[in-house]
């Protein structure tokens, strides 16, 4: 599914990712944990192709195709989905119009017919209910005036509608209370079907109580320094990131 080999990436000439390797197979859930500044969000942006993030070495493939040679929208159409840590507000563009456009762009790539307005509306309503957002959120501007938790749920709603093959969740738990966290996790879990893969980026172990990972990786200073199963996350929660070195002492997970 996703294969990252010796990836090096920089932002404004500052090296952030420094030799990262990761193999994600179909159906697997990988958690990437790490202290602040480890390069967690950068990884999500590099994979999705955000401008300003340049790759100097190594490569990443999705379903065997070189991601770095693809435009941002092509990566999405190939099945990648990034749930943003800070979803952008776009007043004037309705959530509904945005998601319909997006779903149909991806369906077209898969060789499927575009959904009619009525077909899409039904799917959107179902997804909206599933993440427990009121239906009028479909008509509002994209993320416009949404609370932090509502924005995160809106991301999960998009994920449900787009049916990606690889979901990267960038700190989808940050700023959520326990109820909202439960909704987000339920949304994610409902999409686990044995084929779809997930990369769950998080600072805290808490989210992993709800989304059970198959693998846990610790990212520090741009590379994976330790990998293990779910018990690694619990270990980090207990003892913090201090084991990574003096400067991380006292940083909890």
């Amino acid at each position: 599914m996703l294969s990252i080999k010796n990836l090096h990436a920089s932002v404004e000439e500052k090296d952030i990712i420094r030799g990262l390797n990761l193999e994600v197979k179909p159906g697997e859930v990988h958690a990437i944990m790490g202290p602040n500044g480890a390069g967690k969000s950068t990884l999500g942006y590099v994979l999705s192709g955000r401008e300003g993030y340049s790759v100097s070495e190594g490569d990443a493939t999705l379903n065997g195709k070189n991601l770095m040679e693809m435009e941002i929208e092509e990566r999405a159409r190939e099945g990648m989905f990034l749930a943003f840590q800070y979803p952008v507000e776009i007043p004037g563009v309705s959530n509904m119009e945005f998601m319909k456009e997006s779903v149909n762009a991806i369906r077209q790539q898969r060789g499927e017919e575009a959904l009619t307005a009525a077909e899409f509306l039904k799917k959107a309503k179902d997804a909206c209910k599933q993440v427990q957002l009121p239906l009028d959120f479909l008509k509002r501007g994209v993320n416009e005036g949404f609370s932090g938790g509502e924005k995160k749920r809106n991301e999960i709603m998009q994920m449900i509608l787009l049916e990606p093959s690889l979901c990267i969740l960038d700190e989808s738990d940050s700023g959520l209370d326990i109820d909202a966290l439960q909704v987000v996790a339920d949304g994610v879990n409902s999409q686990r079907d044995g084929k779809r893969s997930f990369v769950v980026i998080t600072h805290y172990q808490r989210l992993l109580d709800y989304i059970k990972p198959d693998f846990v990786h610790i990212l520090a200073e741009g590379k994976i320094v330790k990998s293990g199963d779910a018990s690694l996350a619990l270990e980090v929660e207990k003892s913090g990131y201090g084991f990574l070195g003096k400067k991380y002492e006292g940083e909890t997970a």
Partner: protein
Amino acid sequence: MSQWLTKVIDVAQENQDFLAPVRQQAITQLQQAGWPSQRAEQWRFTPLTPLKDRTFSHAQATDSVSVPEIPGLDAIDIVFNNGTLVTSLDELALPQGVSIVSFAQANAQQQDDIKTLFGRIKPQAHVFGQINDALSHHGVMIDVADHAEITPVIRLINLTSADSDNHTRALVKLGQHSHAKVLEFGQGEHDSMNTAVAEYSIGDHASLEHYRFAFYTANAKAVGGTHFKLGESSNLNSTVVGYGSQLSRLDIDIWHSAENAFAKLNAIYLLAEGELFDLHTCIEHAQPNGTSEENARGIIGDGARAVFNGRIHIHRDAQKTLAEMNNRNLLLSRRALVNTKPELEIYADDVKCAHGATVAEIEGSELFYLLSRGISRQKALVMLNFGFIQELVNDIPNKAIASWLQPKLSERFAHMEVK
């Protein structure tokens, strides 16, 4: 002097009708003032070069013109083709309370009514207004009776299907407590010159829902005006949409001639590559307690130029005036240009007046968000920019017009490149 203006004056002098005295006055002014200098403030950013030595051309109306269909719109259509009135006004099925007569067919009484409106609302010193005064033999007067509620939208449609000089006129009088809807529509891409002028007198407590869509493109030249006089406690809601062409200029004047009137003006302009569109608005608050809200928003393509000049004049007696004006522009390239200028003249001391203008480029994080969902760059840009225009489209009171307009605008935008 310009070759074209000389011909305009010749043609005007050959044709005389019951409006001769006022037409002659305009001709005299044109002769005295001559062709505007490029240094004149009015034309500083809008070169008149494409007009100066133009060949004056008269084109016949063609047999069939296709009038834009707006699905679901109940409309009364008055059509001008190549400057000639082609609708038989006698055959129109009009609701009670409205009468429409052409200048050519007006009886003595109607001629008197026309004379009391013609040239009385628009500003005197505008060269193209004077040209229209001199040449507008094809014109109509629409009279809405006191207390009449006219539901259908009266459409004044100017279509050009050949290289031509088109100088049509509309006079609209709304009686007290009446309500009407008027859409002025202009379209053409031929090498035509269009000076459609409309003057509206909105009676006390009357309300007008108004639209002016200036869809001139390519080689068309359009310099027109819509001028409103607001009576006491009257209400105006106007939406203006302009495309750009070789030379497009529109003057909107709103004159609060009595107390307590309310005017709202929303303007949208979408300029494709190399086009020019100039919007001059002037709001005259001559009396107290008036309100005006103006929003002009434009998207300007590569090598295109927009001009926005928004004047608000609050007279000494116009206390308690509330006037707001805002102009927002989005440039699609480094070679897109807008000259935006607010012009505030305030002589009353107890007023609230606010104005603002912004010029922006596209926000990178919004674009990334849409692209990361698989939406193509072109489509994403349309959606983002449409958001900016969408608010004004959503504000259009007539839903049939709004739903017809929206895809037209997004289609036009889809052909504009972001560089």
